[in-house]
């Protein structure tokens, strides 16, 4: 498969996993973090969780994967795209926790950091691994 399509497929797989993880974390943490409000704040639409999530998902499926392959030659970290994907997603995570934090404060930031980091790393790993598999770029 050609590179952009492989990347988009990777983004879709990563986004599917990310969404499931976010829903699980949201329920598990009894909606105290409000992960979907965080996402809405992150994409600049505070208060509009549905629209915010759609934008977030579209970016995760199309924009970030395409950015990922266009930056491929410049990204550091190992030759394996899955590892590069995790580094790439971790960079987004930094933006995500800063922009989406809102008024969250205190100990809950521990769970906020852990859950969002895990979700982002899983997204990046899946993006890179699926991309590598489909585009047959050897890890």
């Amino acid at each position, binding site marked *: 498969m050609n590179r952009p399509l492989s990347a988009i497929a990777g983004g879709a797989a990563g986004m599917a996993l990310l969404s499931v993880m976010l829903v699980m974390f949201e*329920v*598990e*943490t009894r909606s105290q973090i409000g992960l979907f409000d965080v996402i809405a704040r992150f994409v600049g639409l505070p208060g509009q969780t549905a629209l915010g999530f759609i934008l977030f998902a579209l970016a995760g499926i199309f924009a970030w994967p395409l950015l990922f392959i266009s930056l491929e030659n410049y990204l550091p970290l190992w030759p394996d795209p899955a590892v590069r994907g995790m580094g790439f997603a971790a960079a987004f995570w930094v933006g995500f926790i800063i922009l989406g934090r809102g008024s969250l404060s205190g100990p809950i930031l*521990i*769970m906020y950091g852990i*859950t969002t980091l895990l979700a982002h790393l899983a997204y990046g790993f899946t993006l890179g691994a699926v991309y590598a598999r489909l585009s047959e770029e050897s890890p």
Partner: protein
Amino acid sequence: MNPTVLFVAVLISLVTLALLRTTGSKRLLADGGYIEGVETTTREKPAGILRWITTVDHADIGLLYLILATVTGLWGGIDAMMMRTELVTPEATVWTAETYNALFTVHGTTMLFFFATPVFTGLANYFIPPLVGADDMAFPRVNAIAFWLLPPSLFLVRAGLITEVIAKVITPLGLPTRALFAIEPPAIGWTMYTPLSRAATNPEVDLFLLGLHLSGIATVLAASNIIVTIFTERDSSVNWANLDIFSWTMLTASGLIIFAFPMLGSAMIMLLLDRNFGTFFYSLEAGGAALWQHLFWFFGHPEVYILVLPAFGIVSYVLPKFTGRKLFGFKFVVYSTLAIGVLSFGVWAHHMFTTGMDPRLKASFMAVSLAIAVPSAVKTFNWITTIYNGKIRLTAPMIFCVGGISTFIVGGVTGVFLASIPIDLLLHDTYYVVGHFHLILVGIIVFAMFAASYFWYPILTGRMFNQRLARAHAWVSIVGTFLTFSPMLLLGMMGLPRRYAAYPAEFAPLQQVSTVGALILFAGVGMWLWNMIQSYRVGAVVTDADVWDLRETGQFSREWEWFERKLSRK
């Protein structure tokens, strides 16, 4: 059409179909196997997902167990991290007290029934057949059923969360969700003490009991399979004298399961009847609270040995491989395993020293509880003497074994103190107890699992893991374990009771140290997960079965020979 009629019609047609399928030329035996002599054909395993849902191969089922247990272990770990987050501040500011109650309930249940037990069943499934020279487990189909009962029981036990996920997903579609939201995570403690569990109005408690019952059935099926396999499927060259130590401990633990789990099942059925059908087994007037505690702990205390014996087995099995020596006093390690197996049924009431039981009864339980320290100490001294003067290689599995022994000593000795009635009266239901049993549960049970996962990784995946990262994980875990659970011993001695979301401010510093430790432990688990997944993708392919240089010391044991034969067939 009336939905009941429709349901019955569907059920009847399914049963008819099933009967038509099975009344062919082949005759079924009671265990589901076919009568010998009938012509059979061998087929390749189907590809893809179908392979995994139809498999009766012991290795495949073993892997399924391990994967399920990884998921549940991470889930229970997230529960634990949520509790540690709540405990950073003295006030219950992060989660409500009710949520906190649900957290420690599901953390305990998930970890004991759906994480620790399946890990060892999975390892037993995978490795006991090659270790005893069998082709497969004695009852392959029972094996598959035993595994496939676990996902639905996990679903029932954790239904409160899962139904909420479903409700959240279908809410935008405008479907009714009230019933789904009514099922809330249970908050009755993993010990399910009556009268609370009897009176709780949350409907999830019933599902919780049913789910645990189902998991108990699965566990008993798996245990029977392990026992029969070890008794009847051994190769002629494997006798009781040279049976490996891991199989010995799995055999003993399985024996305990056969005696303990039906007790839990019956006790829970009575509780279900009390809750739903107006029976009075656990009514307060009839001393029901004490009855529940006796029944529960008659299961509950052997349960901890069901978990710890296989871990002892792994330590006893792996330790000699990296010291270049035989296990010191092998025979006595086996005897001590059997002794623990027997004694474990005579200590249950040490969980009830504060209940006002007859002091003479208490004294006898105290004596047996102290006595059980002897076989445990026999093991510990044998491990230390195995290391003594050995040619030690500090590989990741070895660091986990040695670290596990050190944490077990602290966890075990604190347990000896708790066995003493006067000390228990002071420390009962404090953080001291939590610290004590976590130093064993994490300190040796989880450590042994990590040791096994690294030691056997080449067999499980055909690839090698990142050894440096694994060693780092081992050291991080030892530090994390001591840092998380030692402060709990102090908190308990200072008198802080467990199971409260809020606590007086003077305990905050120690609680915070404990949370930092938990974060370190969690980071270690992340390193492990990364190593497992990434090495499976890109780890160096193993071509020589003697990954650990075991031939040199004559310890190239059966499972590695089996692996070598598999490699040579490729």
